[in-house]
């Protein structure tokens, strides 16, 4: 490259050549990684989109149900009914490795053995609307959890894809061309050096030859004269 200075030596040339081989292999690997990440990402993001649309529609309906319940019951009744939950949801969080990106995998654990055991109140003092509301929300829970899993995975994958893409581009458009340019420069410089050595040698040989001829001529003239 024009800007940086490289030593035009044979050692530098072998070093650069080895580096270029590594860079080309790295570039190929990273490109494969990017392509696979992209495939996985697109799959996940499509699921993410449809899940989100479903969840948002479901939550809208659940919220409407809760609005009905609020209209039917007094606030204090709702508070006592809902804020002392019987059920507790806990998550077992595992990790799945997708092309060295660790994405979360959730498994749900509920406190009571029956996951449908969600009504934390007696049915006597609350309206049926509240039961509907709670049920509509609980039906949405698996989707909500899957959404969390998928959406987080998408975010992590997106960040990794961006990073990988930058690396691929840096290798492809900067590192590798630079190295090739340097290698060409060194080869040319070395060839040039070799040629000039050759010429120098030829010149020296010429000079020596001329000297030898002149010497012999002088000697033969001397012999003729003597």
């Amino acid at each position, binding site marked *: 490259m024009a800007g940086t200075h490289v030593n035009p030596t044979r050692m530098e040339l072998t070093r650069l050549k080895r580096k270029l081989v590594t860079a080309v292999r790295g570039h190929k690997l990273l490109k494969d990684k990017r392509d696979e990440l992209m495939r996985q990402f697109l799959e996940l993001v499509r699921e993410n989109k449809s899940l989100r649309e479903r969840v948002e529609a479901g939550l809208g309906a659940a919220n409407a149900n809760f609005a009905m319940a609020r209209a039917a019951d007094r606030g204090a009744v709702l508070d006592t009914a809902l804020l002392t939950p019987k059920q507790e949801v806990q998550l077992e969080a595992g990790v799945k490795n997708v092309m060295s990106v660790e994405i979360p995998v959730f498994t749900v654990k509920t406190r009571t053995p029956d996951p449908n055991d969600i009504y934390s109140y007696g049915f006597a003092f609350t309206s049926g609307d509240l039961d509907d509301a709670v049920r509509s929300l609980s039906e949405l829970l698996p989707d909500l959890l899957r959404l969390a899993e998928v*959406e987080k995975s998408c975010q992590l994958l997106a960040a990794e894809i961006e990073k990988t893409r930058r690396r691929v581009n840096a290798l492809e458009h900067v590192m590798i061309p630079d190295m090739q340019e340097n290698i060409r420069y060194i080869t040319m410089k070395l060839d040039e050096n070799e040629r000039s050595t050759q010429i120098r040698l030829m010149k020296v040989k010429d000079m020596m030859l001329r000297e030898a001829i002149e010497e012999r001529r002088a000697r033969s003239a001397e012999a003729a004269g003597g």
Partner: protein
Amino acid sequence: MYRIAVLGDRDSVYGFAALGLTVFPVEEETEGARLLRRLAEQTEEPYAVIYITEALAAKLEEEIDRLRERRFPAVIPIPGVSGNTGAGLRAVKKSVEQAVGSDIIFNN
């Protein structure tokens, strides 16, 4: 064992309490930011998922962006009682743009 939190205005979140998620009724920006940070950093019984209403999420964008690249917790915007603002889908779109360079999923 991880837990699940729901943040947002009271009316939007208290339904989740019945399901056994941990709810935190909060509407105000500074309090929400402080709470979110506390939940994210908590190591004793950590939270793996934090659902947050779109209205509150819009105020806490900075905090949420900080958590984007961490594995836990997953901060997921959900529509609250005030209606769907489309912020959730916009966040997905942002991921697509980050990964692909342009939006190829939502451009219809």
